[in-house]
C-alpha cells in the first residue's frame, strides 16, 4: 500500500509543534488517497519520542545514530535520501521551519522531486495535488499545481493546519540502519547559542503595544511608548524594528522572537506576516491599527482600525489619559 511520509521535527529532546500539524494533515490526505502514513524520526536516543509518535502513524521509521544527535542538513539529506528511495512515498511532508528551509530544497533537488514550499493548503485528487501558497507577504493567495510527475515533496507552514484528534493507529516501529559513516562532513555542527535575555519579559505582560515598520523612524517610537505607558502596557515590536536596531531583540514577537499571550495585543503599523502572527495569535483580544484595509493583520485581529497611526495614536493616548483622570476625580 502507498504511504505518505512525514518528517518528525525535534530539537533538544522535544518534538516541535509542526510535527503534530503535518501528521494530522498527512493522516487526512492519506485517507483521501487510500494510502497509509509513516513518520520518519532521525536522532540519537530518541526511542521515547518514537513511542509518542506511534499512535499517529501506521509506521514509525526510526533511524538512530550518534552522528544524528544534532540536526545537520548533510546527515539529514543522506538518511532521508535512503528512506525515500526505498519506500517511494508519493508525498513527503516537511515543516517549512528553520530546519525544513535548510534542507528540504536541496534534498528535493538531489532526488529530482518536484517541491512546493511553504504551503498552507494541500488537496489530493488521485495522484495529483492542488496546493495553496501565499505571495507578497501574505497579501495574495495562490493556487499552485505540480507540472511534473511525482513523487512529490511539500513543505508546510507552521500553524497552517489544525491538529485534529483521530482514533489511534497501531504504529509499527521500523528500525532502519543508518547510512552514515565516519567520512568527514563539509558542514559541521558546533553548538547552540541561547536567545539573549533582556530586561523586560514581554511574555509576562497583560497588555502589549506592538509596533512595526509603519512607525517609519526610531524618533517616532516615544509617541507609542507614551500611549503604552498610559494604558499600563509594555512595548513590543515586529522583526524589522529589531533588524534596524530600534528596539532590542527581546521585544520581538514572532517565530524567531517570542510567543506572547497577553490579554490585549495592540498591533500598530504591522502588516501581519505569518511569522509575526504565529507569535501573537494566542492573545485574548487583538486590536490592529493599519492604514491598509487589506493588511493581513486584520484577519488575525478581534478589532480593526483603518487609520494613519500618526493621527490615531496621539488621540488614543490623550483620550486614555483624559478618561483615566475623569474616573479618578469623579
Amino acid at each position, binding site marked *: 500500500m502507498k504511504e505518505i511520509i512525514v518528517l518528525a521535527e525535534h*530539537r533538544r529532546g522535544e518534538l*516541535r509543534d509542526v510535527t503534530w500539524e503535518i501528521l494530522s494533515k498527512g493522516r487526512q490526505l492519506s485517507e483521501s488517497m487510500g494510502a497509509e502514513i509513516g513518520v520518519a524520526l532521525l536522532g540519537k536516543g530518541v526511542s521515547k519520542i518514537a513511542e509518542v509518535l506511534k499512535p499517529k502513524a501506521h509506521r514509525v521509521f526510526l533511524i538512530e545514530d550518534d552522528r544524528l544527535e544534532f540536526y*545537520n542538513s*548533510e546527515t539529514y539529506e543522506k538518511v532521508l535520501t535512503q528512506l525515500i528511495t526505498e519506500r517511494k512515498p508519493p508525498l513527503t511532508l516537511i515543516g517549512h521551519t*528553520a*530546519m525544513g528551509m*535548510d534542507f528540504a*530544497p536541496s534534498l*528535493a*533537488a*538531489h532526488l529530482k522531486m*518536484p517541491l*512546493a*514550499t*511553504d504551503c498552507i493548503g494541500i488537496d489530493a485528487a488521485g495522484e495529483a495535488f*492542488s496546493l495553496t*501558497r*501565499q*505571495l*507578497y507577504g*501574505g*497579501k495574495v493567495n*495562490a*493556487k499552485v499545481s505540480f507540472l511534473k510527475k511525482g513523487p512529490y515533496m511539500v513543505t508546510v507552514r507552521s500553524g497552517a493546519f489544525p491538529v485534529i484528534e483521530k482514533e489511534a493507529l497501531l504504529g509499527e516501529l521500523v528500525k532502519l540502519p543508518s547510512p552514515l559513516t565516519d567520512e568527514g562532513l*563539509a*558542514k559541521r*555542527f*558546533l*553548538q547552540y*547559542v541561547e*536567545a*539573549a535575555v533582556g530586561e523586560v519579559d514581554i511574555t509576562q505582560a*497583560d*497588555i502589549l503595544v506592538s509596533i512595526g515598520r509603519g512607525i517609519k523612524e526610531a524618533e517616532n517610537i516615544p509617541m507609542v511608548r507614551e500611549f503604552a505607558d498610559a494604558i499600563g502596557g509594555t512595548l513590543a515590536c515586529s*522583526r*524589522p524594528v529589531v*533588524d*534596524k536596531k530600534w528596539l532590542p531583540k527581546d521585544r*520581538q514577537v514572532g517565530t*524567531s*522572537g517570542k*510567543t506572547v499571550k497577553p*490579554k*490585549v495585543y495592540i498591533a500598530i503599523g504591522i502588516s501581519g506576516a505569518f511569522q509575526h502572527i504565529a507569535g501573537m495569535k494566542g492573545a485574548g483580544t487583538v*486590536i490592529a491599527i493599519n492604514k*491598509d*484595509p487589506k*493588511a493581513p493583520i*486584520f*484577519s488575525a*485581529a478581534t*478589532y*480593526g*482600525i483603518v487609520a494613519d497611526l500618526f*493621527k*490615531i495614536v496621539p*488621540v*488614543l493616548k490623550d*483620550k*486614555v489619559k483624559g478618561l483615566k483622570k475623569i474616573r479618578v476625580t469623579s
Partner: protein
Amino acid sequence: MNIVVCIKRVPETADADVSIGKSGKDIDKSGLAFDLNEWDSYAIEEAILLKEKLGGTVTVLSIGGEDSNESLRKCLAMGADDAIRLTDPAFEGSDGFVTAKILAEAIRKIPYDLILTGTQAEDDGYGQVGVVLAALLGIPHAALVNRLGVQDKNVKVHRELEGGVEEVFELDLPAVLTIQTGINEPRYVSIMGIRKVAKKEIKTLGTSDLNLKVEEVGLTGSDIQLEKIFLPPVGEGAEMLEGKPEEIASKVFDILKEKGGLA
C-alpha cells in the same frame, strides 16, 4: 575572496493597495514601486563588508528584465565590482528550482569562494533558491544565516532558529549561505552614488550563453505552476472600529477596560 551575490528586484507591496492583474495569475504591478528584495540588501552588504576586510571581488547576479539593472546598479553603488543580468524570454514562468538552475549555470562560469543569497524573496516567498543552488553546484550550504565569519578555508555561521535560539556550524568553502535580515545594517546609497555607476557596463547572458536548453527553463522546465491568485479573506473575524478618531478612541478605551483589566 571572490563572492557572488544573487539579487532580485521586487515590487514593494507592504504599503500598497494590491489588486489582481488581468491574467489572474499575478498582481497588477502598474503603479507599484520596486526595490531590491529586503533579504538581498543584507546579503550584498555582508558581501561588501567581507570584501572590505579580506579583499577580493563581489559579483552580483540577477535574473530579470532590463528593469533589474536598477537594483544591480544599486549594488554596484554599494560597492560591488561587477554585475551580470541573466535574461531571456524563455525564462518567463520559471519556478524556484529553475531560477536556481539558471543562477547555477551562470555561477559555474565565474570564480567563487562564497555565494550569498537572501533567505527568501518578498514576492514569491519560496525560501528555496539558495539551498537548491548549493545542491546543483554540489557545495555545502546553510540557510537563515544571521552571523558569519570567514576563517581561511571555511566559514563559521550562526543559523537563526525559532525563538531566537541559534545553531552554529562550520562549513568548508566554497559554500552558499542564505542571509537573514538584521545580520548587518545595509549602507545608504545616495543618488550621487548611483550616478557614479550609471555608465558601468552590466553584462547580459541568455539561455544559449549558459549551456541551457530552452525546454529546461521557464514554465516547461519548472516543477510547479501558478494556476491563479486570489485575495485572502480580509477582516475575517475583525470587527472594524469606525468613526472619528475620538469615537474610535472611546471604543478602544472600553475594550481595554473590559478585556485588559485597565485600571
